[in-house]
């Protein structure tokens, strides 16, 4: 068998895009990572330029230059901000993911990521913790675990294994119970596979997807609820092919919005808390859930303030695309900017609907000794239910 070369997996679309890229440089200015590092190898447009060079050189590319490009590829939060300004609307997130996939296949993958892929293969989660401990967090909480249910609450690795997120999961459970939903968590839940997409191990996704689909189909559920936008995106983009049209996929925010609209849950009188909301990239930009959280906040508080640089063109918190594994400090610096913005607009509470954003921003707020309280979206809703 022929030795595989970096970027060999690029098909017609990707190869053509290397030349079709309009070189306008819009992506360079908006990239949150490039803004922080100022290293041009992290600039999206520059990566395309270098990848085009590698593609043309084919076999004769020097190993060091490939390595440099690969390092640049991993210094990226996959937030899709570059895609949002791309005049050609080319799917850049998929491009970065595909390039990372090639890096892993040809042995250029970076260490934390390859380790994580191994962890996913062995234990079905990204933290290399035992798979049997995935539902340990439910202890002491009234979390239903049924064989059959109408609604499945898909937890995701972060919420399952990270203690800080326990209140968020608890709040979500409260909301689901208050709405009178016949719901359950999955017994055989494994990682959704989104981290594999981010890290470049896409070819191992099938096993995980099969396991999840089997577990979901055995419950006969018609609806799957997500707290993690990463899981949500990989479900509506990839799993929906397997699950068919029968199953509705909703993010917690969409679900809560529909509850508030239909009156399934009643909220108390509006508070006067200055709440702001950070749009997770995976949810707002890459999945298009933008208006729903604003509807809910309009019913929750009189003092909702919009965080600058939000909605479709939201600036990443720095926690996406496994960037934290590459450069924790830079990722925190990016997150601190979001906290600073929240302070500037005078918000007392900063909410977000993504476990990863929550972790990154709350850590940044703690490091910054900021007064802004960072909570998950569900945590903001749960105490206000009548």
């Amino acid at each position, binding site marked *: 068998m022929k030795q595989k070369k970096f970027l060999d997996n690029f098909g017609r679309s990707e190869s053509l895009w290397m*030349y079709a*890229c309009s*070189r306008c*440089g819009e992506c360079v200015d908006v990239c949150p990572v490039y803004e922080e590092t100022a290293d041009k190898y992290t600039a999206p447009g*520059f990566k395309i330029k270098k990848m085009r060079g590698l593609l043309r050189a084919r076999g004769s590319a020097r190993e060091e230059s490939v390595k440099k490009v690969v390092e640049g590829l991993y210094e990226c939060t996959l937030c899709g901000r570059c895609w949002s300004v791309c005049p050609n*609307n080319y*799917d850049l997130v998929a491009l970065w993911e595909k390039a990372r996939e090639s890096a892993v296949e040809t042995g250029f993958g970076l260490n934390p990521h390859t380790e994580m892929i191994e962890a996913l293969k062995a234990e079905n989660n990204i933290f290399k913790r035992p798979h049997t401990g995935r539902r340990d967090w439910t202890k002491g909480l009234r979390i239903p675990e049924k064989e059959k249910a109408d609604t499945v609450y898909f937890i995701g690795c972060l919420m399952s294994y990270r203690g800080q997120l326990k209140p968020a999961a608890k709040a979500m459970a409260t909301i689901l119970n208050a709405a009178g939903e016949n719901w359950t968590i999955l017994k055989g839940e494994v990682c959704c596979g989104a981290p594999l997409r981010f890290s470049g191990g896409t070819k191992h996704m099938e096993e995980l997807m099969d396991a999840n689909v089997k577990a979901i189909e055995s419950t006969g559920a018609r609806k799957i609820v997500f707290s993690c936008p990463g899981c949500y995106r990989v479900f509506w983009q990839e799993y929906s*092919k397997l699950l068919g049209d029968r199953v509705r996929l909703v993010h917690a925010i969409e679900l809560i919005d529909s509850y508030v609209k239909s009156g399934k849950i009643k909220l108390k009188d509006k508070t006067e808390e200055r709440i702001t909301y950070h749009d997770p990239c995976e949810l707002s930009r890459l999945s298009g859930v933008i208006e729903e959280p604003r509807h809910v906040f309009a019913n929750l508080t009189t003092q909702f303030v919009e965080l600058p640089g939000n909605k479709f*063109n939201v600036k990443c918190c720095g926690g996406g695309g496994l960037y934290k594994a590459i450069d924790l400090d830079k990722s925190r610096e990016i997150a601190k900017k979001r906290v600073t913005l929240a302070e500037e607009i005078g918000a007392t509470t900063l909410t977000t609907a993504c476990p990863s954003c929550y972790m990154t921003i709350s850590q940044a707020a703690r490091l910054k000794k900021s007064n802004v309280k960072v909570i998950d979206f569900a945590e903001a809703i749960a105490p206000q239910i009548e």
Partner: protein
Amino acid sequence: MTGDKKVPKKKYPPEMNYSIVLKGMGRTSPIDVTFHLLMAILLITGLIIDLLGPWLGGWLSSIRSIAHGYVGALFVLVFIVYLIKVAYSKKMRTVLTVTNYVDFLFYIILTVTGITMASVNWPWINLVPELADALSSIAVYAPAVHVALTYVWIVFSTVFPGGILHGLASVYLISHLKKKYKNRRSRVR
């Protein structure tokens, strides 16, 4: 920043068609669109004159004077603005390749020879007679350089990834992606 992109990603893979790309270009940089549009007009009219000349003859008179001449004059202005923009924009210098700069060199030579030929035409000879005098020394070579360099540029920018290959790839990519949309997933069903 010039406005927001109004394409909520509810479809996967995201759509890439001519209207989105053209709108996107207009949103990103109007000077870019003008630059490319004028260049396309100039290239096409130039090729028509040179390749179809023996058959069309006098019909091309107005094409040469208006579509190639006045548009060319406009292009010179836009090109100068574009070059200044490139020189002052770090983001563009980050993404432009050597081939792009060689392309610019081609355009500069084509522009200068074009100005040389046009400088003796009305109204330029009346407005700036000094221009014709200043450029008279290269007037002998101007037509040959202007025409031959265009063809050399076409070959160059196709073989190396320059302007022509960029355009061909864009057109082919947009047409090709249409097939991919058949199995597109949408978020809300």
